[in-house]
């Protein structure tokens, strides 16, 4: 293989590559949707399982389980769940009388991107829940007791005690979710290959296509470098925005 120095040509080409920008947009959609679903749902479960339900061992064990499955299994499993011919998702919609909503989820250009985001969320909810539970259990109980004496409602103790003292964990979780969402590969690669018609193309699948289908390694590496820079800026920005005075207790 002959190597020729071409300066920044790959980056210039990348800048004018429409598919690259579309992929980046899809990644951003996956980041935002994952952040919203993962943070709200796992924080909700973490609070319920520490403050309300006392016998939480069963739920913790079950909710965490998808996290230890191979992404390949998750991709194949969810491809079957969405399958138009025998998938349980359409089956479920028919069961509850919403059969007009059934469709080929992964083949529908409006639904496909959301459909490939959900398996990742399903996989990680238990993980972040356990992560938040560890943080909540570190908050000293006397703070809540003192609040109760002063007459705080449950919402108030959530907003003014739990949230500020859990902020560090929420920040770390946000950065993880962003990084992992930018690196989404296996699920998209196996479920849709970026299709239909590039409607689920993400940066990593586009990089793979250039590197291992067209053997344009230079261009693929340029995509990798840009992915790294975007991830780095997104994480740095998140840390800056979410920076807060550390509360001593």
């Amino acid at each position: 293989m002959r190597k020729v120095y071409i300066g920044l040509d790959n980056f210039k080409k990348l800048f004018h590559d429409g598919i690259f920008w579309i992929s980046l947009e899809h990644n951003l959609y996956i980041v935002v949707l994952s952040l919203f679903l993962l943070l709200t749902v796992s924080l909700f479960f973490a609070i319920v399982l520490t403050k309300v339900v006392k016998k939480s061992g069963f739920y913790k064990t079950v909710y965490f389980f998808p996290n230890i499955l191979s992404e390949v299994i998750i991709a194949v499993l969810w491809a079957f769940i969405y399958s138009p011919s025998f998938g349980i998702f359409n089956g479920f919609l028919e069961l509850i009388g919403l059969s007009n909503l059934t469709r080929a989820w992964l083949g529908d250009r409006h639904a496909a991107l959301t459909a490939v985001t959900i398996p990742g969320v399903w996989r990680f909810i238990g993980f972040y829940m356990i992560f938040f539970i560890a943080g909540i259990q570190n908050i000293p109980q006397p703070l809540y007791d003192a609040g109760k004496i002063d007459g705080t409602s449950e919402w108030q103790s959530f907003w003014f005690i739990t949230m500020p003292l859990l902020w560090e964990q929420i920040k770390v979780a946000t950065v993880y979710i962003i990084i992992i969402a930018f690196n989404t590969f296996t699920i998209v690669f196996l479920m849709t290959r970026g299709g239909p018609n590039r409607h689920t193309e993400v940066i990593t699948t586009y990089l793979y296509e250039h590197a291992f289908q067209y053997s344009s390694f230079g261009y693929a590496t340029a995509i990798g470098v840009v992915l790294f820079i975007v991830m780095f800026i997104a994480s740095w920005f998140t840390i800056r925005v979410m920076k807060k005075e550390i509360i001593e207790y």
Partner: protein
Amino acid sequence: MKKANDLSILGKWAKNIPLSFILIIYSIIVIFPLVWIFSSSLKSSIEIFANVWALPKGIKWQNYVNAWIEASIGKYFINSVFVTATSVFFILLLSAMVAYVLTRFRFLGNSFVFYYFLGGLMIPTFLGIVPLFLLLKDLRLLDNFTGLILVYTAYSLPFSIFILTPFFKSLPHELAEAAIIDGCSDFSVFWRIMLPLAKPGLITVGIFNFLGIWNEYILALVIISSGELRTLPLGIANLYMVQHYQADWGTLFAGLTIVMIPTLIVYIIFAKKLTSGITLGALKG
């Protein structure tokens, strides 16, 4: 005060019924797909298409035989066991040695070495994947287990060292000094005293690496190309592609069950260890 009371009564009511309901619904969302895989693995393709919800009529173990022998899942299983066991062995050996030396000995560049390894945690797989591919190609390590094991070991070292260093730091220094006075060499202090004491840390690192490597897909996809060297995730992914044309879904479901069983066993035994190690494991971004 009155308002708080109202809210807490309301809260109590709200807590008991709808919350448990939500928790149970979500448990079903997690468990049901897995039960579905298992039940479908015992059905014929016709049954799978006929009714999604029905239980298998007559148990079709033949699917497992087909998956294990005809679809080569048995071979991939053995490949995966070999690759995972060898990689985890080297990861544990090397990361324990590095962590021990870094905590026990003061030398020039000590903290540089530590941060150098730590820097490895920041490199995303996709940034390095093309240079890694080309490097392995030059070294003639593409498409063989040596290359795959080397890559897995190298990729896992930063995380493992990061987890093990505090474990070794917390071990009593006096023990090592006493052993040296009794005539123990540095190596046997490490091997016979420190390593057994660091066992809880080694188990945590071992479990996380076992799961990570057993399930790994992307690096294997890039490194391995021959059919007979496929690991389980590669094999299952391939089977899934092939079944689009052959439509022998029962066999594929049986294959999925076979991949999940070892992780399920590890999870049942070590669930506590895994969930408590999450604050550490979470760092593997």
